[in-house]
């Protein structure tokens, strides 16, 4: 019974009474350093940029707050100051301000805190400097700020950039994230994969130091959710199955792209005919290239029309089931209804179990699919449907008693579905799939003799 194919191939060190011996010895900390390195880079970057921003922007701002006090002064005159650096004329706005401190009057050419330095605050745009002076009129009393130790140093404009503080906050959060991530990833380096998995599943249900297993388990955690199907009641049977494989959004996207391509390429073509170039050889080359673009547009349009035709040609298909989720060994009733005016070569319904395995190959995720069980549960050929006589067929099927339940995890999936396959006369085959969920039979939960009818 316990041969290689029965699930014990990997660990064959034990005997039948259930014991294993001779543990494999390995160095500890087999986990990757990529996360700690990643978080270290974030942390170092955050600290460096935060330091630069703090030193060059935040500290001068705070110093300004501390050393300058608010007062009032009078605008005497305004001007645009001009200097030439490397043969380039640069400009900055300046206001001649008169203000009084403790009875002493001061006159100073100034604007913002950059103008406190002789060569700061200049820009190549003269108009910008002129527009900055517009709010200042001669004789006007305005708010100003002067330095307490040197009252001759004053400014009339002072704006504290909100974005500067926001950037500083962002850098601070980068440091915090880097630090937390680094501590967390360094801690996990020495943690076994089982402990990591247990922690990631739920720290609350897996008390790590508990001596007994006293937690409530999520028994269906690897079985797909049934709510999507069970929230859709049927009109004849209990549940209506969602019919998948109708890629509406990609189709809409492709249609819009094709229309845009078509309109632009033909627009350019017509434009070239109306405003034709003088040079004949250029004209021919232009027509060839524009013709190629138009040709691609026509091919795209044909492809989209064909896809739209296939997507909507089959019309409304209704599939209802007598019970859901399904259990191995139980019998179920299925209702198939197909409306529209169609003539079919054949129409078949299959019960399918598919294995889906995903793995990384370089930067791509490769998905492998394999049907491991397929049973045709309904088949009909050479018939017509009309508005008065749609296809309305009820039939039964039974899941094999040894069938595996549905299973879904990050990289592997066991996917049960009802496959619809229709071939309309003179048209390609159309396939649609309806996912179903199979749960494992658990003794005491239900009897195997029961059915889902």
């Amino acid at each position, binding site marked *: 019974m316990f041969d290689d194919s029965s699930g014990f191939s990997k660990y064959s060190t034990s005997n*039948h009474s*259930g014991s294993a011996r001779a543990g494999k010895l390995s160095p500890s900390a087999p986990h990757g350093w990529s996360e700690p390195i990643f978080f270290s880079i974030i942390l170092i970057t955050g600290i460096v940029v935060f330091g630069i921003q703090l030193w060059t922007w935040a500290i001068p701002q705070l110093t300004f707050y501390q050393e300058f006090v608010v007062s009032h002064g009078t605008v005497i005159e305004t001007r645009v100051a001009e200097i030439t650096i490397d043969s380039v004329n640069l400009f900055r706005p300046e206001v001649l301000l008169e203000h009084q401190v403790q009875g002493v009057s001061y006159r100073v050419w100034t604007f913002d805190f950059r103008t406190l330095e002789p060569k700061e605050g200049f820009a190549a745009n003269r108009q910008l400097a002129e527009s900055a002076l517009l709010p200042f009129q001669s004789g006007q009393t305005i708010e100003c700020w002067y330095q307490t130790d040197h009252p001759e140093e004053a400014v009339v404009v002072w704006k504290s950039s909100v974005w500067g503080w926001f950037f500083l906050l962002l850098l601070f959060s980068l440091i915090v994230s880097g630090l937390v991530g680094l501590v967390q990833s360094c801690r996990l380096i020495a943690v076994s994969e089982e402990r990591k998995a247990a922690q990631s599943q739920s720290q609350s249900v897996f008390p790590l130091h508990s001596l007994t*297993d006293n937690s409530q388990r999520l028994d269906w955690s690897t079985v797909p959710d049934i709510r999507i199907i069970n929230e859709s009641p049927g009109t004849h049977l209990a549940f209506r199955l969602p019919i998948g494989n109708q890629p509406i959004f990609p189709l809409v996207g492709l249609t819009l792209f094709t229309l845009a391509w078509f309109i632009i390429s033909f627009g350019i073509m017509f434009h070239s005919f109306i405003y034709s170039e003088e040079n004949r050889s250029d004209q021919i080359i232009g027509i060839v290239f524009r013709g190629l673009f138009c040709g691609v547009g026509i091919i795209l349009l044909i492809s989209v029309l064909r896809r739209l035709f296939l997507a909507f040609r089959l019309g409304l298909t209704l599939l209802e089931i007598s019970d859901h989720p399904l259990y191995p060994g139980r019998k179920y009733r299925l209702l198939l209804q197909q409306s529209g005016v169609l003539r079919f070569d054949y129409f078949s319904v299959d019960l399918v179990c598919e294995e889906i395995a995903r793995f990384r190959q370089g930067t791509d995720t490769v998905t492998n699919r394999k049907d491991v069980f397929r049973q045709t549960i309904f088949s009909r050929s050479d018939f017509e449907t009309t508005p008065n006589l749609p296809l309305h067929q009820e039939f039964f099927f039974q899941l094999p008693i040894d069938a595996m339940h549905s299973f879904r995890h990050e990289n592997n999936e066991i996917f049960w579905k009802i496959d619809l396959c229709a071939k309309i006369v003179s048209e390609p085959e159309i396939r649609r799939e309806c996912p179903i969920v199979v749960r*494992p039979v658990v003794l005491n939960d239900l009897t195997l003799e029961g059915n889902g009818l």
Partner: protein
Amino acid sequence: MSSIINKIINSPAERSNPVSPRIVITLDGRGSRLYQPGETLAGSYWFDFVGGDDIQAVECSILWHTEGKGSEDMGVHAFWRHATDAGDWIDPRRPGRFRTVLPKSPLSYSGILIKIYWSVRVRLFLADGREAVENLAFRLGNLPDVRTLKPVDLS
């Protein structure tokens, strides 16, 4: 990189202690390793060729994992950890116990692209930085190989 560092660090220890620790896992009172969902799995584990002072921590897990074409998935159903730095006293010759009610899914499965295995895994962390690990496989449910699955004929 870490494994290289550990190898360098651990080489003298391995030379001075050529005998590897042995982990023994046993399941309680049955000759079969076949369990049904909802059944209780219980057993014990102990260690040979290792002293109490050499052990830093012990982890015992009841887990499933996948093998096959896809990348490995793993789920831990039950997990226990005993560590000396957490104040736990670990005697290598005194059996450690584990006991859990097995879940309803996933069942052990032998498919074409996917296989699901259940096992009891005991991991021993030694004070010199090395680890020893042992698995004892068991089956949850009694599904045959998927290749033997036959359609049900209702006619």
